[in-house]
């Protein structure tokens, strides 16, 4: 970059100058945004098209022969004959049931996991007890264990507990803690100035009270970020719910969606119905993110949590 010369260009802020490099950089950026967002548009465009018209006009940018048939099939609102006539399998999603299951599982996991992890994190960060650092080290080592490793034995355990095909069975393994959640909350509690706690102690508050009335409210921002990420993760989880649930009573949206995809006729996929179903399955997380995007993005940008 050249030094600023004493001409009229000096009046304009430096960032404004367009060099070939900057044009290139913006082009790359625009291409990346396009690749990021194109699939979202294509879901919508396909979901609103009819299967017959899709085959005839695969490249049209706008929905072809617009119809809500895809959504009706995905929601199980069409009769079997009608669905098959439009290229569906006749097997619909019991959408509201799966949505409820997903909400129950994700909420249960998120609320419990964060409360319990925060409590443990507080004990690791702020309470004095023997063996504290050793126990914390053990928790941390849990980060290294790949999920597949615990899934098989966990499945055996859940089966022995008689919880297969239940929402509790899906939730239990991650309900109490994850090493990451404990680690993340501990980082926060360790950075809270000790004076805050001492002031409350002098006022005669007990430590349990301090935790719930002082520390937890102070941690609302990291808790929100962790909460939304946990919610997204448990909402999107597929492997474990697939193992544990067999019937509609415990089926969550991801599993239902994969089954809907497997049911669609192999000779010609029901793309319109499939895209409507994916949109329905993804929409709640997009809405949730829409609400909290700014805070989450800036927390991740600043803390680099994973």
């Amino acid at each position, binding site marked *: 970059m050249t030094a600023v010369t004493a001409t009229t260009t000096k009046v304009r802020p430096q960032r404004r100058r367009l060099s070939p490099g900057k044009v290139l950089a913006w082009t790359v950026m625009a291409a*990346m945004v396009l690749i990021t967002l194109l699939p979202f548009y294509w879901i919508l465009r396909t979901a609103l098209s009819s299967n017959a018209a899709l085959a005839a006009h695969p490249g049209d940018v706008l929905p072809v022969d617009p119809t809500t048939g895809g959504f009706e099939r995905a929601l199980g609102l069409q009769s079997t004959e009608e669905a098959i006539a439009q290229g569906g399998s006749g097997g619909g999603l019991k959408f509201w049931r799966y949505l409820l299951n997903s909400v129950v599982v994700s909420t249960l996991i998120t609320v419990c996991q964060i409360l319990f992890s925060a409590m443990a994190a507080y004990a690791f960060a702020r309470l004095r007890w023997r063996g504290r650092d050793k126990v914390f080290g053990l928790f941390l080592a849990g980060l290294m264990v790949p999920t597949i490793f615990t899934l098989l034995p966990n499945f*055996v355990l859940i089966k022995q507990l008689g919880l297969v095909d239940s929402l509790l069975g899906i939730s239990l393994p991650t309900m109490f803690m994850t090493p990451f959640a404990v680690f993340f909350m501990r980082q926060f509690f360790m950075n809270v100035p000790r004076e805050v706690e001492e002031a409350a102690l002098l006022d005669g508050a007990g430590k349990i009270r301090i935790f719930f009335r002082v520390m937890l409210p102070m941690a609302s921002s990291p808790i929100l970020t962790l909460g939304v990420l946990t919610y997204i993760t448990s909402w999107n989880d597929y492997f474990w719910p697939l193992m544990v649930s067999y019937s509609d009573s415990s089926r969550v949206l991801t599993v239902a969606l994969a089954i809907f995809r497997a049911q669609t006729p192999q000779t010609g996929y029901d793309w319109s119905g499939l895209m409507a179903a994916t949109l329905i399955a993804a929409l709640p997380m997009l809405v949730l993110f829409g609400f909290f995007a700014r805070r989450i993005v800036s927390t991740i940008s600043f803390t680099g*949590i994973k």
Partner: protein
Amino acid sequence: MTVASSSPPSRLSPRDVEGTAPQPRSGRKREHGGGGDGALAALFIAPAMLGFLLFLFWPTLRGIYLSFTRFNLLTPAEWVGLDNYRRMVNDPIFWDSLKVTVEYVFINIGVQTVSALAIAVLLQRLTQSAVLRGVVLTPYLMSNVVAGIVWLWMLDTQLGIGNEIIAGLGLDRIPFLADETWAIPTIALINVWRHVGYTALLLFAGLQAIPNDMYEAAKVDGASEWRMFWRITMPLLRPVLAVVLIMTVIGSFQVFDTVAVTTNGGPANATNVLQFYIYGSAFGRFQFGYASAMSVALLAVLSAITILQYRLTRAGQTDLG
């Protein structure tokens, strides 16, 4: 995993990164608290401890035990010593799936790291827009199942928009997910699409820790953006990059959902990644012992990689201090 401090503005200090460093001034606590907090700590840690022991610690031990048994869920596990491991070593499908997994990991990590770095640097040097940061994160909100189905559709040989564009350019259509050569790279790229924004944000966090005056000073000296990238950004970002890399390697070795939704291991085992093979052995053929042995192998591979990467990166660690 927290790469930097959890309270903005982000700064990498040893105290934050070091997990078990003793707290300063913790001794003073006794004066007010009146002795240790043993009982209270036990109460606070009980639920997390229960979950840890029941669903993480015990299953790990049990998984190792099961790998030495023949077990089909219906009858009690029967001790068979090293049989499962012997079988694994002589199983060509196991080695094939390991090879496919490694191929996937290389493509996934390579493309993802380079693109994430590019996005992070562009976000840092070009604009600090929070909206753009939000946009790059949106694919992360999709489940792997959704991402898999969407790309299955977009890359469909006859009707997919991808092939429509390719055909429009006068080129031959590519059967992305139905062809043995294309399937693994395609799945790897689908997962790059879903995860790259998140990785970029993690790297962005690392970039935020680099003081802006370093760039200003370099600019005064007449350094180009390209030169600043190699002389300032890369060296200072390396510790963060290393941690992010370890996490993504561990994550990508565990690819499953996308394969299950798009190719189901095919065509002709071309996408039969390790995790998928383990799953099939356990729940398709009820060979829980054998599946556990392969899980132990996966754990061993992951531990080895983690240790190796820590060793390699510690040597070249930089500090902003």
